[in-house]
């Protein structure tokens, strides 16, 4: 690994100033489970400074408010997300993804914000967050902005952050009454692998819990970025929760939207098949959770 400087600013302002000054030579460090590996294999030769974000209060806060929803500081590790009783109760769809990332060791370090910023097509939390209508709170030299999760990733390993910008937090609205969400992925073993395909889904039901008012479906590992499939949600709006044909139509829409590649983890055909199966399964779980709540 190249020689590095390490700095751990205590304020957001200092971190932004530093990153803006150094440009491509500086990289934020959250849990380091992506960036340290990338540095070690020589994939970021231009970097000479790591800016540790874990001492910045806005990035380490995790809090829930019934009106504001969830504030998930970008540097909060997955273990803190899934060990939080409120998050477990309110956002099981996020927990599904946070508990899947790497091993228990990795989850002790890996942040949700790092997963999002790394912008891997296979990033497990991203489809789960898109399904939950999450937004990205961003701060930079020119102030703050907020972007829907589905717009954050722009290409494999790329996101829309501009020079000096930091993802401060992921925000998820308070769950609507009678709503539910889930995330599933397929890997060839039980744990410790990268998604061959993944699906996050959420549904909102009417007050009788008989009809789907709205639904959101997003996919991992089948496009250059995590993919939000609006057509899948549209196929479900107004349909009965027991309408298997509607669920199949949503799955078909997801398969149609998927643009996977063939690589060592799976072929195009296999990935498309997986998207259909996983979409049906996540929708069933999401509906079940919405009805149980």
């Amino acid at each position, binding site marked *: 690994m190249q020689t590095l400087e390490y700095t751990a600013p205590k304020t957001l302002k200092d971190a932004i100033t530093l990153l803006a000054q150094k440009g491509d030579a500086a990289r934020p460090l959250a849990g380091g489970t992506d960036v340290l590996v990338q540095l070690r294999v020589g994939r970021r030769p231009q970097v000479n400074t790591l800016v540790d974000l874990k001492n910045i209060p806005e990035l380490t806060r995790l809090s829930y408010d019934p009106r504001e929803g969830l504030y998930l500081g970008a540097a909060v590790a997955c273990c803190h997300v899934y060990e939080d009783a409120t998050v477990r109760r309110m956002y099981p769809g996020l927990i599904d993804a946070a508990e899947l990332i790497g091993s228990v*060791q*990795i989850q002790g370090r890996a942040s949700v914000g790092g997963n999002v910023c790394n912008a891997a097509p296979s990033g497990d939390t991203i489809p789960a967050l898109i399904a939950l209508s999450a937004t990205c709170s961003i701060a930079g030299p020119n102030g703050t902005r907020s972007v829907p999760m589905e717009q954050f990733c722009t290409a494999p390993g790329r996101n829309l952050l501009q020079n000096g910008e930091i993802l401060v937090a992921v925000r998820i609205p308070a769950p609507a009454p009678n709503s539910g969400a889930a995330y599933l992925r397929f890997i060839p073993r039980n*744990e410790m692998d990268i998604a061959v395909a993944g699906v996050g889904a959420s549904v909102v039901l009417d007050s009788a819990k008989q009809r789907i008012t709205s639904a959101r479906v997003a996919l991992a590992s089948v496009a250059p970025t995590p993919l939000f499939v609006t057509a899948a949600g549209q196929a479900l709006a107004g349909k009965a929760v027991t309408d298997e044909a509607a669920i199949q139509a949503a799955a078909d829409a997801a398969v149609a939207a998927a643009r996977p590649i063939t690589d060592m983890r799976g072929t195009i055909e296999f990935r498309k098949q997986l998207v259909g199966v996983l979409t049906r399964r996540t929708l069933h779980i999401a509906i079940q959770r919405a009805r149980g709540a």
Partner: protein
Amino acid sequence: MADKVHVRTTINGEATEFLCEPRQSLLEVLRDVVGLTGSKEGCNDGNCGACTVLFNGRMVTSCLVLGVEAEGKNVTTIEGIATPAGLHPIQQAFLENAALQCGICTPGFIVAAKALLDREPNPSEQRIRLWLAGNLCRCTGYDKIIRAVMDASKKMQEVKAR
């Protein structure tokens, strides 16, 4: 070259200071600077778990932590698991169940198993397997390791019940 950084930390209960380069991993620092060679390097990319240590009580792969991040933290390595009175029950159980062959993976497994049993004294076999999924072993085929952890869990509870 970046200047070396002076880090003050606690390793296995003892206040420790070291100098390291910012790019050095905690694993490198433990082994090459502090001289604690119990933690092993298998992959250096977070996949094998041979470098597992407790970092403020939470298990992490020390190859993916920077040495400088140990400032003010509490680190427990395999060297801190046994007591002056003897081996930790998990270590004893690994011996009695022949849960190691070459031994490279063993420190990581033992630290990880301790992290589990400290939180959950009586985990199911499935829970143990899942918890240890980030620790790879090329020799044993895992079964003896899982049995050793189950055995240790049982014995530790018997001791507690007494």
